């Protein structure tokens, strides 16, 4: 079982009405891997991530998380979702709750932990992102970088098997990007499995185990970062990489 | 036995009005209690709005309407009446500085203020063009009288008993003229509810007979009814003669 991938995406399809935006995606993520997904706007990157914890219903294929099929109609969604964290571009912190309450809400309400236990775990998670002293602050009192770090703490507090990041730094001032990437790097070092959609190529080169280039709903090219970035084999990949490094 | 339940509109002094210590009082409230005593039972009298009284009675929430109700042919199409217990004449109340008058001609070109939904409103509607006056209707008689005080109306027309009370309360107004009408106040019942009507009417007859009504008139209006007037004259049948719902069968008085 050691070799079993944590996340297995098999022939995944997704259509909005008549518009098919994922046209059969196959992807495996092994424990401890950081998979980096790039691709032009509208290529389906977000849709892929959102299908993985069923924020969107897929229209075909399967997604297995640690062996559980999240696309099954009888899947215990709320349980499986605990295994798969998600970090959003716009943080989506609960504005009415303190940082700590943001992090502990699911612990208290889904895992039904006592307040003390949840708080302990929550403070640990905040410590991992370097924000234990902001536990009592509200999101509106934090900078964007801090908010995103709380967003990360919120998802790792649940001890997920894999965390999905959807452009975690693209709503941030360039100066604040670094602090978030640093936290992600530390998670990676601690052995967390991650799938990251981002345009931070520098980070991808440094931290990714595997890079996936998507376009128009299919995986066009994938491989080690040095291969995909250094010597892309597909013209579409080449064009894209040229474009974003204006 | 089950107590009688009825309601009054407590904005109708001195017939029904609040007691400042709590509860309600007035001629009709006393009348209600006297009726209950006569019938060997008790009575619950609720202070409510006039809008709630008629639907309340039809719905069976109230056994009858104790609030002073002037008998009219029109109302008799939808409710039954006991015989009258008081005459109701119409008094015109004016500002204290206005001279008194002795005929309706004095109203020419003037505005009079009335209580909404009263027989006075109906009267005014019928007579406005004849005497050349205008009229406004207000939610309560107190509002109507306020209109006179504010100079918005020349006179307030209301039942003589009510006007007498108002004048006593408020030295800035006075009664300028009283019009006799021959109309009476009576208790109102559900249309066709013969049993309750006959039972309560009987008690009313007894109260006339034993002088209770006359005593209440003295207590609340300071007026001793003349011999032969409505408060002291027991009618022949149940209801008001000449009005729908009247039962002319002579009634044999049975009072305990």
């Amino acid at each position, binding site marked *: 079982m050691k070799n079993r991938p944590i996340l297995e995406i098999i022939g995944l399809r997704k259509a909005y009405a008549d518009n098919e935006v994922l046209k059969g995606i196959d992807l495996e993520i092994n424990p401890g891997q950081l998979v980096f997904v790039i691709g032009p706007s509208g290529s389906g990157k977000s849709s892929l991530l959102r299908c993985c914890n069923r924020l969107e219903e897929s229209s075909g294929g399967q997604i297995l998380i640690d062996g559980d099929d999240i696309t099954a109609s009888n899947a215990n969604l709320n349980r499986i979702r605990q295994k798969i964290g998600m970090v959003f571009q716009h943080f989506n912190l609960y504005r009415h709750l303190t940082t700590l309450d943001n992090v502990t809400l699911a612990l208290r309400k889904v895992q039904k932990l006592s307040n003390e236990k949840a708080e302990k775990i929550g403070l640990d998670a905040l410590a991992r992102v370097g924000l234990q002293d902001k536990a009592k602050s509200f999101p509106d009192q934090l900078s964007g970088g801090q908010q995103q770090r709380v967003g990360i703490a919120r998802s790792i507090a649940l001890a997920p098997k894999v965390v999905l990041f959807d452009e975690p730094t693209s709503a941030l001032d360039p100066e604040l990007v670094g602090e978030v990437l640093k936290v992600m790097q530390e998670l990676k070092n601690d052995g967390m499995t991650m799938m990251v959609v981002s345009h931070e190529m520098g980070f991808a080169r440094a931290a990714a185990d595997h890079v996936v280039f998507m376009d128009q709903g299919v995986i066009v090219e994938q491989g080690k970062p040095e291969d995909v970035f250094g010597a892309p084999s597909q013209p579409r990949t080449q064009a894209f990489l040229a474009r974003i490094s204006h | 036995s089950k107590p009688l339940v009825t309601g009054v509109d407590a904005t109708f002094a001195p017939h029904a009005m609040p007691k400042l210590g709590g509860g309600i009082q007035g001629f009709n409230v006393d009348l209600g209690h006297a009726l209950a005593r006569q019938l060997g039972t008790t009575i619950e009298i609720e202070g409510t709005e006039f809008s709630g009284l008629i639907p309340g009675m039809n719905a069976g929430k109230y056994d009858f309407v104790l609030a002073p109700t002037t008998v009219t042919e029109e109302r008799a199409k*939808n409710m039954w009446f006991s015989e009258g217990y008081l005459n109701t004449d119409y008094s015109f109340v004016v500002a204290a500085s206005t001279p008194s008058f002795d005929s309706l001609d004095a109203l020419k070109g003037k505005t009079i203020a009335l209580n909404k939904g009263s027989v006075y409103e109906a009267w005014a509607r019928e007579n406005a063009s004849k005497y050349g006056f205008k009229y406004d209707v207000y939610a309560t008689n107190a509002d109507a009288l306020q209109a006179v005080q*504010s100079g918005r109306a020349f006179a307030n027309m209301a039942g003589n008993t009510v006007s007498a009370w108002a004048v006593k309360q408020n030295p800035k107004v006075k009664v300028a003229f009283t019009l006799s009408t021959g109309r009476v106040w009576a208790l109102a019942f559900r249309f066709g509810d013969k049993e309750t009507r006959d039972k309560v009417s009987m008690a009313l007859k007894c109260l006339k007979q034993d002088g209770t009504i006359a005593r209440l008139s003295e207590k609340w209006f300071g007026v001793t009814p003349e011999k032969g007037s409505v408060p002291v004259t027991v009618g022949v049948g149940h209801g008001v003669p000449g009005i729908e719902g009247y039962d002319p069968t002579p009634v044999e008085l049975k009072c305990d």
Partner: protein
Amino acid sequence: MDFEALAFTFFNLNVIKTYFPDILAGMLVTIELGLVVSVTGIVLGLGLAMLRALQWRFLNFFIICFADILRAIPPLVVIMVLFFAFPYLNLSMSAFTATWLSLSLVLAAFAEEICWAGIVSVPKGQAEAARSTGLSWWQSMVYVVVPQALRLTVAPLTNRVIAITKSTALGSVVGLSEVLNNSQSAMSASGSATPLMMGALGCLVIFIPVVLLGRWTETRFAWKQ
């Protein structure tokens, strides 16, 4: 179930025939009053909200007091004071005017709060963009901030307009013959509860279009995506 008695009480055909004209006349007064109250109330409320956006301390204090007081006291009292007390100051007005003015003030108080919330919700950048192209403060309010604020206010304003227009019934304290009063007068005169039913139906006839208009406006002015 006693349908016959129910019908006799609430759906008495004779009574309906007799009082239909009265109820209709009352409806016209309600519609007329409702229209003018809505217009003046909303315009005044919007104006106050815009003035409040100027953020002049002294003025704001008065606007807030105005809104608080008129929202907290029963409109009945406002009507009575305007109608019965102002003549002593030689400011006499008709029942219609007094009711119109009072309800307009009350609606203005509510509308001010609603519009203010709407104005606050428009991102600061909108006004800044307008100002930076040379629009005056007033122009940026009128052409940029308020049109966007109003979208948010349609739903609560509809609520308030209906509620306030229904309280035209309070005009009865000053002798205004609108639909609810006429139905109550008719009930009292006829001794039947049927006119109440007629009044209620009259209200439905008047207000359902208002509600639908509110819903329509809301969808019509949703952001074009």
